[in-house]
């Protein structure tokens, strides 16, 4: 995984609550055996109606673009499909901002270098309004300082992230490689515990 620290970009607002992973990537697109190509079908059934682009959907609005997705609370609920994280990443998002994330999605995102940033409900609404009124608004996520800031008025908020996970992301370190490296310890635990 590539190290992550600062992401500075315009943002795309999708101010809908309870966006489940079936909306992020519908089940019928889960038949690939690699991690590539899911971005094409991100929010497929909201982006397209009868195979035509729905101009109302923010991802189809040419004024909204960038690496940051801002979405309503309880983002990523439902199915555990990691394809949701691959689809968001594949489409070009590096950050999802919401006031509440579902657990499994959050893990999946972090395991793919997609930052799930939890902000207060007030700051979320503030950011959504700001981006809708001025799509050129630049937002900066600083992982090291754990801050998210907008560049119109300069307001910012601090966000929480587990120190271990933060360190991994800053260094581009991978959980699996770490666990493989402690295989001898796992083996002796197994022997001791009759596993």
């Amino acid at each position: 995984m590539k190290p992550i620290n600062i992401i500075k970009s315009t943002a795309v607002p999708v101010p809908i609550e309870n966006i489940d992973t079936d909306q992020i990537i519908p089940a019928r697109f889960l038949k690939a055996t690699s991690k590539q190509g899911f971005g094409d079908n991100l929010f497929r059934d909201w982006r397209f109606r009868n195979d035509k682009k729905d101009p109302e959907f923010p991802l189809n609005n040419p004024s909204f673009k960038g690496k940051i997705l801002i979405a309503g609370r309880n983002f990523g609920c439902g199915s555990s499909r990691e394809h949701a994280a691959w689809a968001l990443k594949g489409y070009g998002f590096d950050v999802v901002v919401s006031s509440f994330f579902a657990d499994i999605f959050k893990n999946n995102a972090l395991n793919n270098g997609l930052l799930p940033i939890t902000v207060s409900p007030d700051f979320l609404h503030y950011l959504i309004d700001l981006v809708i009124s001025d799509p050129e608004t630049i937002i900066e996520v600083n992982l090291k300082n754990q801050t998210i800031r907008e560049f119109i008025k300069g307001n910012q908020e601090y966000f929480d992230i587990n120190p271990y996970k933060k360190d991994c992301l800053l260094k581009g370190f991978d959980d699996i490689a770490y666990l493989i490296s402690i295989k001898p310890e796992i083996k002796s635990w197994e022997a001791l515990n009759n596993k």
Partner: protein
Amino acid sequence: MFKMGKTIFEKIWGQHKVDSIEGGPDILFIDKQFIHEVTSPQAFEGLRNRKTGVRRPDRVVATTDHNVPTIDQHLPIQEELSRLQVSKLEENCKEFGIDFYGLSHPYQGIVHIIGPELGITQPGMTIVCGDSHTSTHGALGTVAFGIGTSEVEMVLATQCILQYKPMTMRINIDGKPGKGVTSKDIILYVISKLTASGGTGYFIEYSGSTISSLSMEARMTICNMSIEMGARGGIIAPDQVTFNYIKGRKFAPEKENWSKKEKEWSQLFSDPDARFDKEYSFKAEDIEPMVTFGTNPGMGIGISEHIPFDLDESDKSLQYMGFMPGDQLLNKPIDYVFLGSCTNGRIEDFRAFTSIVKGRKKADNVTSYLVPGSKLVEAQIKDEGIDKILNNAGFELRQAGCSACLAMNEDKVPEGKYCVSTSNRNFEGRQGPGSRTILASPLTAAASALTGKITDPRVFI
């Protein structure tokens, strides 16, 4: 020194903690991983790229369920991508020495159905699977949770997972459920009270007299839907019901090993002085058959109730469903009925459905998908002659798989059509693009299939 009691969840977690990372997650040993065709191929690819193997193939079981057809399973899968995904799983299992229950195997079925029915799922275990409904296995007193594909790879490579310990919640349900009220109604009621995010960050223990009086299969329906509140998992303390269910199953402990295990399992309960981070209590008498009206499982009401009047007409989910605030769902016309899934695809669900439709006729305007959760369930249905009763009532039995729960195969509900479904999710498009799902129990699904309208099953009981 004063020692605080432990919850059953904390006991099992503690017994599997290999180590913990300072300021980070715990390293948890996993007793069993189930894998299926959809969330595993990228994990195996990852293993190859890392030039590492599957560390404990003896602790992995594979089956095909998500995208398989539910008719003519003896023929090659028609749909090319599904066929490729299924054959990829078979190849991967062969390469890494994993037990594989493919379409031609008598044990094939939905992962969360076959684990318990084969006696693979046993109290006190830690279980993972790349599927959010892994919480089902918690009904047998296990710590079981859904994971993503990176984590599938992690467990394949090391038999361990890095995981933050969730908070604990207890949901007590006491009393005797009324006529026509099943465990599906109980859990839909609980979710409607806690909302689709009310359990996020928690591992839920279900207890109380109502839960203890439920059969093993009914308990699985409860734990199955824990994830619909966002919970990491659900668990029920194992008791005599659990032990009786497991005894004699294919992979259950035998002879002297059985008594040793039973003794061990009997220790798995929450101590009386154990503290939960959150606790709720409900009365079974307050619950009637439930139906959902919206596009998340938290949007449920009693079948005699009205959709909340205070919802906005422009509410996205009501618009999608074609309902209005204040509407009653009772007597609304429907087009499809789906009996099946890891929520309600077991033999008791088929018995319940059949108890309503026996000697009656399916409404002509209703298309039905009746899909056993596994090949063993299908065999049991035939043994008991349930398939004949269903045929006489105008229904057809299909073959095992996830089917119309997520519509990855051909079993779809068309755009705009209503389906009374015994599955677990009513998300937009879940049963096919534009499909409209009403979640309900097998009894309500059966009653609605007979009338072609959303129907209170108590009319037929």
